[in-house]
């Protein structure tokens, strides 16, 4: 019986074995051949969490931390767990009503589902944080506090130097494609934070986490063996003297302008004040957004770093350089004398260049009392120098000197948005007047630092360092050294001396003599500090908006002590009216005293600080602009339009990226901005909302300034 169907057992075995093979082959394709499922599993089952390292700390020259990290808190909520917590207490602490509370919970659930944490209130203020911390036990486990590292500024000074962080935008991501930035990351937007982003950001770490079916992170994957640890950013030692910086900011309160001080021996920037400025803490922490909007909308442009971005005519401070050129070219000697009978008539009687003090001057006294006629004559002699075949070539030679002094090009300092300024070239005049149709009379105003020549405050400070060093400078910079080494070669260019033209010390000594005279008994006596020999030079810069003459800019620059220069400094107070000696000189005097003596001596000097600090020299046009803005903010839409316009301008002034195409980009942007500012103008129907600061006039307007003359 059983023998009968015995063969069928083999059929059954065959069925079993073939089924086994089908399953195993299918498993082989699923598990070994196909890689799709592995990818899918990693996508849903693991999470790659980026760990942000602490950013590097910045120290000042006395090793005080001026930029460091701190922690603020976000209040987080898990809506699924909040049943039974006392919402009224929470609402009272946060200062919200129940409608707002419900709104936030609902939006949290919509955004992240009810079992995942969402931010209930971001970046708690210290006050709210203190109250919450005491009561947190009442709100657990539905609410908890989450740390968030932010930048901290212990001295609350130097905002324009240190810069701030902001979320990266698409443009940034485009430029830094392969550097691992993700949407939502923060990166240095301006200042040192931007220039040294690579150094400060450190190296991100990656943690691999397991994720469950509700998208919650549960455990480290394999206890973290695939993780890479985050490496903290490198600390940097800056040449900044934070106390000097703070004093500078205080002195420049209620003024527009800038102070830049450089250590001539090292090129290290000691302070770099741009006024008006902002408290750096404004742009970090809880109320950042509010402050940022305010700063953006301020017509005085507090976010704008005037020290490197604003360009001015240098005024009479330029005369020191003319003296150097004249002496070195041999067209004058220290004993060369010029008499001024009231004006310079070398170019006929059309528009004579006035001099204030009549008399006869040699080089030293001409510098000391800032005689226009003397330097117009020097310029005349330089350009008609028989050593050169034509005016073209003698102007080209003059240009060479200017470049050697660090003018007419970007210095290459380590804060972004530096402007090159302008030194007129033969080609420029050929274009403006036609080839061969111009002579030195067309730019006699250049000899006294007006007209086509344009400089930035940092260039003037550097030029003072050059004179102080008797013929060389190191590119000014903020960062002296980087802890753990300069891995990206960012500091290399700050180690070499620039001395393109060899000028003998005797030439410098003569100029130093004149500059010492300026402070001792000349136009800059207000800068005098007992016990310190200061060499200085005043400047009073005429300027225009359109064709309307504005109050003069006050300039003062100099270095001290004369024998062993430790500080080269410049100060500009925009539209202060009066002379350079009136406001800029005393500010420089106080700054030099603070730096060299580490303190301000005596009550009288302290009072002077307070007095200068309170002195309000902000020009009326700014107030008018503020008024216009305030009346506009009533209509929200137009305010928004203005904000857009301002953002545009801010981008323009801060520059897109640090490269040579910068200028080309600027040109394009300027054209765009003109279009943009037109509707704003119409909107407000008030001329004063034009936000271009007078200091950076476009090229056409510069021309109109050309023939203006000052002492």
């Amino acid at each position, binding site marked *: 019986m059983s023998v009968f*169907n015995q063969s*069928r057992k083999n059929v059954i075995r065959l069925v*079993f074995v073939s089924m086994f093979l089908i399953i195993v082959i299918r498993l082989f394709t699923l598990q070994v051949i196909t890689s*799709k499922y592995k990818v899918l599993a990693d996508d849903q089952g693991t999470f790659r969490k980026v760990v942000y390292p602490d950013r590097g700390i910045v120290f000042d020259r006395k090793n005080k931390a001026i930029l460091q990290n701190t922690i603020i808190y976000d209040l987080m909520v898990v809506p699924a767990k909040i049943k039974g917590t006392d919402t009224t207490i929470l609402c009272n602490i946060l200062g919200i009503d129940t409608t707002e509370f419900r709104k936030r919970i609902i939006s949290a659930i919509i955004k992240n589902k009810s079992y995942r944490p969402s931010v209930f209130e971001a970046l708690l203020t210290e006050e709210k944080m203190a109250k919450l911390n005491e009561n947190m036990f009442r709100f657990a486990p539905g609410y908890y506090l989450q740390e968030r590292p932010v930048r901290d500024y212990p001295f609350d000074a130097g905002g324009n130097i240190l810069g701030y962080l902001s979320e990266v935008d698409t443009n940034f991501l485009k430029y830094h494609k392969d550097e691992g930035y993700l949407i939502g990351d923060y990166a240095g937007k301006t200042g040192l934070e931007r220039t040294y982003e690579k150094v400060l950001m450190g190296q991100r770490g990656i943690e691999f986490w397991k994720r469950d079916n509700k998208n919650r992170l549960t455990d480290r*994957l394999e206890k973290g063996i695939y993780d890479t640890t985050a490496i903290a950013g490198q600390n940097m030692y800056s040449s900044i003297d934070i106390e000097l910086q703070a004093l500078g900011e205080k002195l420049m309160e209620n003024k527009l302008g800038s102070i830049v001080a450089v250590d001539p021996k090292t090129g290290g920037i000691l302070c770099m004040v741009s006024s008006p400025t902002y408290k750096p803490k404004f742009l970090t922490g809880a109320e950042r957004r509010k402050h940022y909007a305010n700063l953006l909308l301020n017509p005085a442009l507090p976010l704008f770093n005037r020290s490197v971005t604003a360009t001015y005519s240098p005024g009479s401070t330029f005369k020191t350089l003319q003296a150097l050129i004249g002496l070195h070219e041999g067209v004058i000697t220290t004993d060369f004398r010029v008499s001024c009978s009231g004006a310079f008539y070398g170019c006929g009687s059309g528009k004579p260049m006035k001099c204030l003090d009549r008399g006869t001057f040699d080089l030293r006294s001409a510098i000391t009392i800032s005689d226009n006629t003397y330097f117009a004559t020097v310029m005349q002699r330089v350009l008609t120098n028989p050593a050169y075949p034509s005016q073209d070539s003698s102007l080209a030679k003059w240009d060479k000197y200017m470049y050697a002094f660090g003018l007419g090009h970007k210095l290459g300092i380590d804060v972004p948005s530096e402007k090159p300024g302008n030194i007129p070239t033969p080609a420029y005049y050929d274009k403006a007047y036609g080839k061969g149709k111009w002579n030195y009379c067309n730019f006699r105003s250049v000899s006294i630092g007006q007209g086509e020549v344009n400089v930035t405050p940092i260039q003037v400070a550097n030029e003072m360092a050059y004179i102080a060093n008797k013929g060389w400078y190191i590119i000014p910079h903020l960062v002296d050294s980087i802890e753990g080494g300069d891995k990206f070669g960012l500091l290399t260019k700050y180690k070499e001396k620039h001395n393109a033209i060899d000028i003998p010390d005797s030439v410098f000594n003569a100029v130093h003599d004149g500059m010492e005279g300026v402070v001792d008994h000349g136009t800059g006596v207000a800068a005098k500090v007992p016990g310190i020999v200061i060499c200085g030079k005043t400047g009073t810069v005429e300027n225009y908006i359109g064709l309307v003459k504005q109050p003069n800019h006050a300039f003062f620059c100099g270095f001290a002590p004369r024998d062993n220069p430790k500080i080269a400094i410049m100060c500009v107070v925009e539209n202060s009216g009066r002379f350079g000696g009136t406001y800029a000189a005393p500010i420089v005097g106080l700054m030099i005293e603070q730096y060299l003596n580490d303190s301000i001596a005596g009550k009288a000097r302290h009072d002077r600080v307070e007095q200068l600090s309170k002195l309000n020299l902000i020009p009326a046009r700014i107030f008018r602009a503020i008024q216009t803005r305030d009346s506009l903010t009533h209509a929200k839409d137009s305010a928004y339009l203005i904000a857009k316009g301002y953002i545009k301008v801010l981008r323009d002034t801060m520059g897109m990226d640090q490269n040579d195409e910068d200028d080309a980009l600027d040109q394009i942007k300027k054209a765009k901005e003109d279009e943009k500012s037109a509707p704003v103008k119409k909107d407000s129907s008030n001329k004063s909302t034009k936000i271009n600061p007078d200091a950076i006039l476009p090229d056409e307007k510069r021309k109109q300034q050309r023939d203006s003359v000052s002492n």
Partner: protein
Amino acid sequence: MYQKNSSISKGKDWLLIWLYAIIVIIGLVCIFSVEYKSNDDFFRNLFEFKKNYSKQFLFFGISIILATFILLTDSKFFTATPNLLYALGIALMLATFVVGRAVNGSRSWIPLGFMNLQPVELCKIFTALALAKYLSRNDTDFSKPRSQLIAAGIAFLPVVFSILQNETGLALVYFSFLLPMYREGLPPGYLVSGASLGVLLVVTLLFPPTSLIIVLSVIAGLSIYFFKRKLKRNKGLLLIILGLWLIGTLFVGVAVPFLFKHVFQKYQADRIFSMVGRDNPFIDDATATLNVTDPGAKKAKTDKENYNVKQSKIAIGSGGVLGKGFLKGTQTQGDFVPEQHTDFIFTSVGENFGFVGSTILMILYFGLMLRIVFVAERQRSTFSRVYAYSVVAIIFFHVTINICMTIGLAPVIGITLPFMSYGGSSLLTFTILLFILIRLDADRQMVLR
């Protein structure tokens, strides 16, 4: 004592017992790996019986006790009582209509307090015994259609009740009784025609019936054309061709739509169609408005079926050659696979131990089956042989369908993986099934009737 021990171990097939133990322990480990969270206290949980793995551990203990009892029972008990047990099983199934509890829409559970009993599971044992008893009767001549019909009646009676209880998945298991019947002489024609119908069924799922009927007619016409000389000599052949055509057409045009509209639950039909990647075309308006209240619901339902299979494939597929390691599977630990401790327990093997682990498990299962075939063939009595083939057929059906549904080769019908899936009903049933066989095998020299 010694005497007793030796009588337990005497003649027992230890290979089967070892294979059983290994597979159950692998199952325990897998259930543990599904439930384990990194901060669990393993030993405390094990004896508190609150976790699935600890409950399964308890069921394993009960199974061992039960197995021991079975091994101590006289094998004549199993040949003497099948009819009674079968009647009891049917009675239990009927009882579910009265005291049954609905779990997941199927009213096939009897609550017993500490566990829920599913009579249709238990009935597999009784049916296997009853079938063995009937086929081993001296006066049964299995070559006669009458006996074949009675045997089929014994095997498929529980199917009817099971379908009435909305438990189609387990009902399908009873078709595995065709295997012992085939071994005992059921003409292969039945199986061949069954298989052809199966092929036709799959084709019907893939293509619309009208075009299939056209194709069938063309084939019939062509065969008449080619065989026209033979047809002249043999008129019967024409009848056969026409008969086959009629059956095929009726099957495609009437039987399959009927099956999907009235026999299968809508969700089951949907699952089957989602397998072949089509929407269920057999929803008539009446059932559509009845079952589908809003148009999104149907989509959501099929999406959910697809989701299970997709997650199962991801978990298995991501295992690679050697797997991610014990307790290191991200999909298992992240609870991505639904029902992972019961029907989809194989996914944790696939993910944690990879292709090598899965293949070893397959070797264990198919080794067990081939061993049972070997054991079956060495029986002297028909009763034992039929019973053994019934057991292996049930195990084969469960293993094949369960594994195939986790790797996307079969539709998701709730069928457990024998010895491994969590659940007392399943584990105890398979333990009893297997150990009765071991007990019978111990007396293989006897002719049991």
